[in-house]
């Protein structure tokens, strides 16, 4: 029992279950999933569909944070990728043709890769603190997105493009499938190969891992490229879902939500270890929170308050010092090592 309680995914899971169950009190049909027009329909499916962008962004963020970095620019990258895709699709002679739309998507993601390289270059080559390095793109990125759309909200009408965010495949939302594939690939890459270990070692100490023969610089650049690519896909899902590119609304505050998701999932911001399952769980919690607030009937604006309370509770629950002070179990859960170990717990 104590092992279960001490598992780092225990508290996030409890929160998610509590949220889902509290939904049941307010809406009887919350767990009902029906088949309508050939695709699954229900609140749970809605949660899966709507958490896809956040899951993707949180996934990239997890990799970045595992190396001890942070990426504040994901929201701006989302806006840029959506803006570019909508601009190019608007220029297509036949926006319903699959081939050109795929090309457009490729172009948007390629641009995101460039921005990822830029972030990685600043952090790994110039040695700028990640939070500042990515702040540059966070501030400038939205300006770039507005430059692309000329400050307008671009509306597009393209059937193939709409599939990404609002379509269904075999009854399952396509956006959920994209997120699931991304999660599966990332898990396979990090846990079935040595990559995960390398990431954690770079996060633990870039210098030590470089001395151990790991190309720390290359790995650092890589995680920012990954984060930007995932953010780009998330931006496509978002803009496809609303069939438009809104440079201000796209990915607004998503960097904070993604960081929150990662922290809720038990990954410490100091780097050195990470949990992909935790981040996915965290992202789903945040989306569920938003949806719950609506279904409980709390005004949408109080979601923030709700979020604050949950964040505070979870952060305190995860803080070893707090647990020690409140429950008097000092030292039982903290990891030995540097004096900062308790921060990482």
């Amino acid at each position: 029992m104590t092992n279960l309680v001490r598992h780092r995914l225990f508290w996030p899971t409890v929160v998610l279950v509590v949220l889902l169950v509290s939904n049941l009190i307010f809406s009887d049909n919350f767990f009902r999933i029906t088949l309508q027009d050939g695709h699954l329909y229900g609140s749970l499916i809605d949660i899966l569909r709507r958490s896809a962008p956040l899951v993707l962004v949180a996934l990239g963020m997890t990799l970045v944070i595992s190396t001890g970095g942070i990426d504040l620019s994901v929201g701006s990258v989302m806006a840029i990728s959506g803006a570019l895709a909508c601009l190019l699709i608007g220029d297509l002679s036949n926006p319903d043709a699959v081939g050109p739309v795929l090309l457009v998507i490729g172009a948007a993601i390629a641009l995101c890769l460039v921005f990822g390289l830029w972030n990685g270059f600043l952090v790994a080559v110039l040695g700028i603190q990640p939070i500042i390095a990515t702040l540059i793109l966070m501030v400038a990125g939205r300006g770039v997105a507005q430059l692309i759309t000329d400050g307008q909200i671009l509306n597009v009408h393209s059937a193939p493009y709409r599939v990404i965010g609002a379509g269904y495949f075999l009854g399952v939302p396509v956006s959920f499938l994209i997120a699931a594939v991304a999660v599966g690939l990332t898990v396979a890459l990090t846990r079935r190969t040595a990559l995960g270990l390398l990431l954690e070692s770079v996060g633990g100490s870039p210098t030590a891992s470089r001395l151990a023969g790991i190309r720390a610089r290359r790995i650092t650049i890589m995680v920012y490229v990954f984060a930007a690519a995932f953010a780009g896909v998330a931006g496509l899902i978002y803009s496809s879902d609303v069939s438009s590119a809104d440079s201000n609304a796209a990915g607004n505050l998503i960097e904070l939500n993604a960081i929150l998701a990662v922290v809720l999932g038990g990954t410490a911001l100091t780097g050195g270890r990470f949990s992909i399952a935790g981040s996915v769980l965290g992202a789903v919690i945040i989306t569920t929170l938003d949806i719950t607030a609506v279904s409980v009937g709390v005004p949408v604006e109080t979601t923030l308050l709700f979020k604050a309370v949950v964040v505070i509770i979870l952060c305190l629950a995860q803080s070893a010092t707090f647990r020690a002070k409140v429950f008097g179990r000092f030292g039982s859960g903290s990891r030995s090592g540097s004096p900062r170990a308790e921060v990482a717990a």
Partner: protein
Amino acid sequence: MTVVTTPPTPQRNRSLLGGRRVYRPNTKHIPVLATLALLIVMYSIGVYNYDSFGDTQVFLNIFVDNAFLLVVAVGMTFVILTGGIDLSVGAVIALTTTVAATLLTAGWPAGVVLPLVLLIGTVLGLGMGAVIHFFKVEPFIATLAGMFLARGLALLINRNSIPITNDFWTQMAQKRFRFDDGVFISLNVVIAAVVVLIAALVLAWTRFGRNVYAIGGNADSALLMGLPVGRTRIAVYTLSGFCASLGGVLYSFYTSSGYSLHGQGLELDAIAAVVIGGVLLTGGSGYVLGTVLGVLVLGLIQTIITFQGDLNSWWTRIVVGILLFAFIVLQRLVTRKAK
């Protein structure tokens, strides 16, 4: 570390700090001097290109329009000097203006409302500082929670924009100090100037100021030296909370309204101003004067874009991003040289 250079007479160098420190203030001044140079260049470009850009009032208006940002950025300077960050400032402004407007509309006297809203921000800052220090929660996350909390409370109180019609508030908002015909500053500017002055003095001449620099330089060393790390750290977040709520009051003077969506993204402006002003984001180095210059640079960019007319508002963001990049790289080069 034993580089012996004959320092080209550092300005107002504090000689009591002794030999090793002598050359360091020079390198530390470089980012601030660069900001000053940039400011002068930008201003000259403006004066050269646009009619009536050189009017004294155009320059003073930068202060009038950015007084609240200046106050917030001063608080942020303290936090960043300790190596922390405060994301809640924009939300605290929203909360302050909303609470003030709501209570004033309900007929509360201004003499009660004013201290109360300042207290709310201060207590919020104190709370975040306490969580950061006692429970070892990262500043980023703790102030993020504070941001959600403040913005959420503001939205809960009232989601609409509320006009402020209170006599005291309108008086304060309309108060002008005139120097010459058509040349004036608002009360906000005076308050901001006082805040800047006090902050600069505190940072340069008090024990608290020294502690802030010491913690930013190396918190572990500061702790081993017996400095009150915890107290100082909590104090800077409290101070930032106070500055944010004071900024909120100035903002409500400036706009004569309370709105829960005021100050969105303001934390980014404040951080950008601090960084452009040459404060090292890792902490331990920088000046309040630099922050003032940083705020001026941001204000000047906006003024130039307004004067240009055919440039759109998003250019502000792109230019600020480019400046951030330039200054961060400059800082990087300077600190690398110092080592």
